[in-house]
């Protein structure tokens, strides 16, 4: 009875999750009842997401991180709320994208399914972001994965679509199996699945070799979600095969949840305390995460950038680019400091905007010319100057050149590295950015420097499309010049972290 009472008392901490579950149920029921006209379903989902976003913002200001309630399963704090905000805003935009996506429109009879699955993913990601318990981590990860397997193969209209879905499933099943193995070992070692309890058992002196083994296995599951090398193989195939809306969604929301989970996993399970300067002190005998992440991040960004050089399909190119960005984002984790964390948060704001923007332009162009091959982009800058210029803004920002927000994001990441005295790593990251310039600019070269194959091709942009592209393009420039607000947001989010 006592347990039940604390559970009921702490339900208010789950407002966003409860809200989104209601949306899920509502979407399914409406889909079942109204089988004639389903055009309003996206709006139901959108409204639900917006309400949830408000609840998340409310959570952002809770100020305290509460682990005592909820059976110590979840942590609610500003960092978590921030990542939830990224997820929910990305979801809102993806619903909007889906409204104007030709691919999704063609599968109009299964819209209910589509939006319900997105809701499912959001619930999963929310729990991923706040989980403090290994079982919770596993369950939420599975919830996200299962929804995304189906979504990746949603349109069913091409072979590669189904192939993507299947590969995603096989690969995902394997990594979650490995992760589960790791979790079982830890449970065997410590007799608990709660990360804080695991930490105290291990700090008191446990079998550190086995612990290390299990930790790496668990990391495999997380690494698969954030597509860090060598767990990234599914990314290009799935990104290329899935509908663009889902590709964009996976590259932002799912990655954000993955990073939040990674940060949670490290800080709850391995960090003894955060000292005054913001550095994370690891518990004695734990893995040398710094070294491990250094190698992983170098591998990830180098593999991502180098493989992207050869790609002819723009979605596949962006898939590799998103792998490379996972590598950059890991740089902020490598340093194991609060500064690094705030750099990750800052970069996520920027990355979400510019990556969604790039995918949006690709989608709009695919809507019209029906192709995602970079060769077919020849002269598109003349056919649609507006989209061309916006694409240029997004790609330049992805490269990290001023005066775009991408530059600011990278600047703060590298500053965190340099403050942590990891200059060689910063140099490698900068060289990687230089390499990335090639494949981003190649798209622009095709768009602006080659004459169009079809001189008369004119691509018109509807008002709804104008608005959404501008909503993403303007902040990229604006935050590139006036970046104080996002920097402050990142700093404030971290200010109360684990104190």
């Amino acid at each position: 009875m006592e347990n039940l009472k604390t559970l009921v008392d702490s339900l208010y901490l789950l407002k966003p999750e409860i809200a989104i579950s209601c949306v899920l149920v509502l979407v399914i029921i409406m889909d079942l009842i109204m089988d004639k006209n389903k055009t309003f379903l996206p709006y139901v989902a959108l409204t639900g997401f917006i309400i949830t976003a408000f609840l998340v913002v409310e959570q952002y200001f809770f100020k305290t991180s509460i682990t005592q309630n909820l059976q110590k399963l979840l942590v609610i704090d500003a960092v978590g709320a921030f990542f939830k905000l990224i997820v929910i805003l990305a979801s809102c935009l993806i619903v909007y994208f889906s409204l104007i996506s030709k691919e999704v429109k063609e599968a109009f009879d299964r819209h209910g399914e589509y939006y319900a699955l997105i809701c499912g993913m959001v619930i999963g990601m929310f729990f991923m972001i706040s989980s403090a318990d290994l079982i919770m981590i596993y369950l939420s990860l599975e919830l996200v994965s299962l929804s995304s397997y189906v979504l990746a193969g949603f349109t069913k209209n091409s072979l590669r679509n189904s192939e993507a879905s299947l590969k995603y499933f096989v690969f995902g099943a394997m990594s979650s199996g490995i992760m589960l193995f790791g979790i079982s070992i830890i449970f065997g070692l410590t007799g608990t699945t709660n990360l804080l309890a695991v930490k105290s058992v291990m700090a008191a002196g446990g079998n550190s070799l086995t612990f290390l083994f299990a930790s790496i296995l668990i990391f495999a599951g997380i690494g698969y979600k954030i597509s860090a090398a060598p767990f990234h193989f599914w990314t290009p195939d799935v990104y290329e095969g899935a509908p663009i809306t889902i590709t964009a969604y996976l590259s932002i929301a799912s990655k954000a949840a993955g990073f939040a989970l990674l940060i949670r996993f490290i800080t709850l399970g391995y960090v003894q305390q955060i000292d005054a300067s913001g550095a994370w002190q690891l518990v004695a005998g734990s893995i040398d995460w710094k070294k491990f992440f250094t190698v992983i991040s170098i591998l990830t960004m180098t593999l991502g950038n180098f493989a992207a050089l050869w790609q002819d399909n723009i979605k596949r190119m962006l898939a590799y680019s998103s792998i490379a960005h996972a590598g950059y984002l890991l740089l902020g984790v490598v340093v194991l400091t609060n500064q690094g964390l705030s750099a990750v948060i800052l970069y996520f704001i920027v990355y979400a905007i510019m990556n969604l923007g790039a995918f949006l332009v690709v989608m709009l162009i695919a809507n019209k010319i029906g192709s995602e091959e970079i060769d077919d982009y020849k002269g598109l800058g003349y056919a649609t100057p507006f989209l061309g210029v916006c694409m240029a803004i997004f790609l330049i920002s992805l490269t990290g050149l001023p005066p775009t927000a991408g530059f600011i994001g990278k600047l703060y990441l590298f500053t965190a590295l340099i403050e942590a005295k990891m200059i060689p790593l910063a140099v490698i990251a900068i060289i990687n950015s230089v390499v990335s310039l090639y494949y981003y600019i190649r798209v622009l070269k095709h768009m602006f420097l080659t004459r169009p194959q079809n001189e008369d091709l004119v691509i018109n942009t509807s008002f709804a499309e104008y608005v959404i592209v501008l909503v993403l393009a303007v902040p990229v420039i604006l935050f590139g010049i006036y970046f104080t607000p996002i920097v402050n947001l990142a700093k404030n989010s971290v200010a109360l972290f684990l104190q």
Partner: protein
Amino acid sequence: MTQYIYLTVLLPLLGFIVNGIFGKKYFSEKISGIIGSGTIGASFLVALLSFIQVLGLPSEQRSIEVSLFNWFNIGNLNINVAYQVDQLSLIMALIVTGVGFIIHVYSIGYMHNDKGFARFFAYLNLFIFAMMNLILGSNFLILFLGWEGVGLCSYLLIGFWYDRKFEKSTTSDAAKKAFIVNRIGDFGFLIGLFLIYLTFGSLNFKEVFPAVNAMSNTTIFNLIALFLFIGATGKSAQIPLFVWLPDAMAGPTPVSALIHAATMVTAGVYMVARCSVIFASAPAIMTLVAVIGAVTAIFAATIGLVQTDIKKILAYSTISQLGYMFLAMGVGAFSAGIFHVMTHAFFKALLFLGAGSIIHAMHDKQDITNYGGLKKYMPATYKTFLIAALAISGIPPLSGFFSKDEILWNAFANGGVVLWLVGVVTSLMTAFYMFRLYYLTFEGKERFGHDAHPHESPKIMTIPLIILAVLSVIGGFVGIPAVFGGENSNLFEKWLEPVFADANRKLSFYNSYGHTTEILLMLVTVTGAVCSILLARFIYLKRISIADNLSRTFPKVYKILLNKYYVDEIYNTAVVNPIVKISDRFLWKITDNKLIDGLVNGTADVILLISGYIRKIQTGVTQIYALVMVLGIGLAIFWLILSIK
């Protein structure tokens, strides 16, 4: 109103964005013009209201910093986007927006039917935006952004008619010349900024200047001041970097009036005045500033004597007048220099706009030897031009008299007789060539062909002329010297006094001469100017043969002056050509083509090669993915276990 001072910066930016994006497609000339000049007019109003408000404050509260937001804070470098409202920046803001507004309005008439009408106004607004950042910025970085911004706008506007011929080449070449020469100066300026940051660890005025005031290490100040001054010589067209300004006349005439006469070229003067404390701590550089200023003044004036292109004469006259301002700075008469910035903005803008009106009437012909007798065709232009010419010649009680006299008096009192003499001779030459221009243009026989039908410009162009003429007449009364009006009559100097208080404390003034000397000197210059005017009248109205005879008697001198001392040619042989040759033979063919391209292409090839291998891992076969992943995990565990000890 001071808290809204940022509007004076933002409104022009808004005008630029709106006209720049929508202007060409959607706006008629009327709307573009209204947006373009309206935003500047509104800026002027904001500046004026701020001025009035500050006027009501006691003098120690007149320096207000308006901080918009913290721009960045990395390491020790903390930069706010913040604007400084004080006596100096308000004066400059009023000049820039006020004269700027008048010139914008004038441009509506001047640019009528030009295909780049909206683009023109967009650039002009962008220029005002940059210029306001330059003069209002409360740290060196904002100042520098504005500094670079005005350089860019100057480039864009000089080459505005990019498809037209200019002299032997094109307007684009003139624009490039201006840009490159300015870049040389900017480089010096940038080094100055680095030195400031190194020495004081900050770029904010309110931290740097008190620190300078407290220190007494002249070596570092000499260095900083020297590099800052190099920057100023570029932007303000002083020896040795003045060569771009005459070529800048390739741009439309309102641009010459706004950028290359009234505002941008005075940025260097403003910067020296803003950094007066630094300069006052570097006595050697102060002398250098004064000497460069004086030499530039007389040097440009001699060239001005023989030029025949109306805009070229005005351009050299601008360089010469800027020399005066630096002379003032160099002898520590900062407020006199800024005073001259103001009066010069009035009468030089008026001269240029008048010239524009004439060029408009004469169908783009600019050679004064083909003018003559325009008086009766263009009454408004004629009257206003005459006022401006009298003002620049220093005839009392027009504005030029007061500012020029103050500079000359300070040069005499604090700089010595030589500097004063150079100033006076320059002043006589100025009077002479201005009236040479005047008589050849407006009086005498009509020397233009029958196909030309000179006519007065429309109202939208003449009204700005009239306003500027009024300002040229009365603008000097805010700075009546103490010798006429008593202790407190020089309102302008009193107003600026707090800004330069620290600098003045550091400088030691001799100033032991009495009022009699001052009046005597004044009489000398005024009499001299009047004589020069009469001489010009005699030669160019009565006996044009004298001029011809003179040039025939001294063919060498004449040729040297006509060819501007061959400075362009000297620069070409001594600097440009060697650089071009070295670049061509060594830097391009060997360093770039072989070394750099080799390295770059080699690296790119290696990267592509590696990338080709990496790509092959991605086979598409899921089993292999799983295998690599498990291998990866195995390796990681292995490696971490090994490294645990």
